[in-house]
């Protein structure tokens, strides 16, 4: 499998930590909107995340339009683990010990 790109890894990592909405993902990853949304589109197309609309009920209670949220799929979780491992070994091979790596859980 081809490892995920670094931004895809960050986005997928955020979603796996239950950060579900586009703008929240920007906040969590620090990536600009012009990066986050195409990455979300790609991840969805490749089957690593699936998107849903939040229920009309919640939106209506708050009197706002419904938001779209993203969930990680099993394939996404696998890809995340493998890619994280890939970057870890890459870092180790290069003699870089990352202080913090995106984790699956």
């Amino acid at each position, binding site marked *: 499998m081809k490892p995920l790109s670094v931004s895809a890894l960050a986005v997928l990592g955020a979603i796996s930590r239950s950060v579900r909405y586009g703008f929240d993902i920007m906040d969590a990853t620090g990536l600009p909107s*012009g990066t986050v949304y195409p990455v979300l*589109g790609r991840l969805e197309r490749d089957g690593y995340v699936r998107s849903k609309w939040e229920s009309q009920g919640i939106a209506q209670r708050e009197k706002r339009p419904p938001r779209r949220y993203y969930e990680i799929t099993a394939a996404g979780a696998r890809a995340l683990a493998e890619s994280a491992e890939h970057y870890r070994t890459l870092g180790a091979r290069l003699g870089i010990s990352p202080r913090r790596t995106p984790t699956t859980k």
Partner: protein
Amino acid sequence: MMGDELSRDARAVYDRCMRIVHVARVVVPERRRDDWTREWSGELWYRALLLDRSRGSDRHAVRRLVVRTMGVFPHALWTLTDEMRIDPMLQDLKYAIRGIVKRPAFAALVVATLALGIGANTAMFSIVHSVLLRPLPYERPDALVYMYGGFKQNSQAMVSPPDYLDYRDRNSVFSSLAGRTVYGTAIITGSDEPERVQSSIATANFFSTLGVKPYRGRVFLPEEERGDHAVAILSYGLWQRRYAGDARIIGTTIPIDGRPHTVIGIMPPLLDRTMDVQIWRPIPFGLDEMSVRRFHFLRLVGRLKPGVTIAQAQRHMDAIARDLAAQYPENESWHLNLVPYRDVVIGGVRPVLLVLLGAVGVVLLIACGNVASLLLARASARSGEMAVRTALGAGRSRLVRQLLTESLLLGVTAGIAGLVLGHYLLVAVRAVGDGMLPRLAEVEIDGTVLAFTFGVSLLTSLVFGAAPALHAARSDVAAMMKSLGKASTTRSAVSTRDVLVVVQVALSFVLLIGAGLLVRSLWRLQDVQTGFDPSRLVAASVSLPQTKYKTRDAEVRFWDQVFERVRAIPGVESVAATTLFPLRGGGDTYFYIEGQPPATDADRMNATPAIATEDYFTTMRIPLIAGRVFNAADRSDGAGVMIVSDALARRLFPGASALGKRLVVDFGKPFVGEIVGVVGDVRIYGQANDAPEMMYFTGRQPNAGWGMGFGNLATRVRGDPDAIVSQLRAVVRSLDPDVPLSAIQTVESILYDSVAAPRFRTQLLVGFAGVALILAVVGLYGMLAYSVTQRSREMGIRMALGARPTAVFRMVVRQGMMLVVVGIVLGVIGAIAATRLLAAQLFAVTPRDPAVFVVVATALTMAGLAACIVPARRATKADPIAALRLE
């Protein structure tokens, strides 16, 4: 639609952001647009809400939100590229390549068929492009105008030097007006073998008018038109060939016509491709023969001033011509006819080339038909695969796109193969067609041709790919799934293939008719009696340098010596000479019957004069009809004698004998000759042209003809004519090493070459028609063979139920021949409409020649029958048991 729960400020921020979203929205593919907008709107509203909640919201947070909204643009672009599906296209391509590799024979057949069509089209288009479409290789060629002189409309005579000077100096429509002689020759002597080359005498501004710069050295100076300057410009070809491209030749002198000339320049190679001239010399306007208004020998070419049309120029030149006519009586009714230079260069080949281009286009159409038929057959065979893919979720458009990708891949591969084939076809055409087409040397595959071939490949792919793709698009999945594993096909596919076969037969019929008409026309042409016997006859041109052979007597002495020595060569039957050999020249002069001078210039009669030696008529085997030929008694001191051709004798003295009558002939000075003989007519201008009315003179009498300084030696041999060529050369060289012997050729080959152009186009069209016929027959065969395979079960059942093999055989043949007959009927209609285009190329054959139609229809029927027999025989071999077992 939402309740207004946002503060006014937050609402303003939201609106501002949504305006940005709406701008980016137009990029988003329609299918995703609503979802995409809703997602952004949902997030933005939520964020605006957050702004409200964190009261005292700073401008910083607002700006941040707006900046983040800018992300809609990359997002929108991403959805667009994602929708274009670069990946699935690659997938289609991979799949297509895999399909080709898996069925290499099928792919090879398709590519070869198409490459044949595309290659022929590439070659033909290159020729049409170079000859007809591409501008002439001169500066602003559209402004160049060619001028013919004449007393009548459409006359193509030349212009006299004094007239030229008047036209040049009085006109205000040409920025430059130049002239030159055509058909001149010169003899170069010096270090090498003496050589006769084409030479032209040009005005000083000739090259600048065309916009041609010298390759080396300079062009003529205006002052070199005055007086008699012995300077010369060489063509690139002559310079390379005779002087090994040595630039030091400039400034040195070379003997031309026995007189030293200083070489002042070399012309660029492009001029070799457009004009057959090796030596250029300046026109000596000062000389006596340059000042006679009725000596017309200049061709004029002018460059129009910007903004002047050719019609305006024509009116302007007409006005000058009227002034000249008022001034000089010999210019009465004389005027110029202006023609675009391009039309003169291209000549009459335009219709021929367009017919040939149409013909190759038809060949390509037929090839497309075959390939479409093949693909349809394969589509039927692949209907199971398609059904499975549909069932697995492939959309209809996805299937069509995939089939078109396959077609495009095949088409482009064929295009590349066709380009290679086209290149070699062009090499062949250039080798075979030399001299038969103007501008042939310029023909090449350039960017335009590449674009044409690429376009044709794409178009071809669409044409042959459309049928199977549409077939796939309207397939019924359920029916296909049901038929999976059984070899059967939908009716519609078969009927499409039937239509393809009918169209192919009709198109090839039209091409075959065209080819048949040209072949018959060529046969008629070659059957025409020339009036002499060309077998075992050798012709050679001899030029005597004027500086050395100044008198008639000197010329005659030289010729007598030649005859004497040639007769001594073993194997020579007889030898003679003439100034006007068949297919090597022409021209005419005025004459009248003695005592009946013409009342006006318009009443003057003309005929074609030639000098012939005593043995000319016997050597050529031109029959003597009455009287005698020339003999040694016809001397300079005797009475003037002449021989006329049968046609002239009949015109002048219908029902009476021409013998003893006397004619007065204009050779500058009048020559009075008594007709002592009448000989048969000779088609001097080739088999396609009528025999001119001829007058023959003997070179021994002064004022008879223009002398024998240039003549054609005619030698009839007993054995192989090629064997004596070297001996002829040796004879002439032994007499005078400065006399060049050129254009040595057997007369049979001269005649053969004279119909080279019609033969060339006939061969081309026959080739195209042959390819079309093969493709159509293969198409018919393929369709029938496929149909028989599909119906083998039906055949088996029929035979199990008692049908005799002959009945099955007849059924299949009838199925095929129905299509052939319908195709031929349509072809007859098409041919009657199309062959009118050929009318101008035909000689003694009408475009609706019944014999050609009958022969072609019969041949096509036989070919069709042959294509039916194999599949029909296979049908009779269908095994009833196997068929029943399958049920």
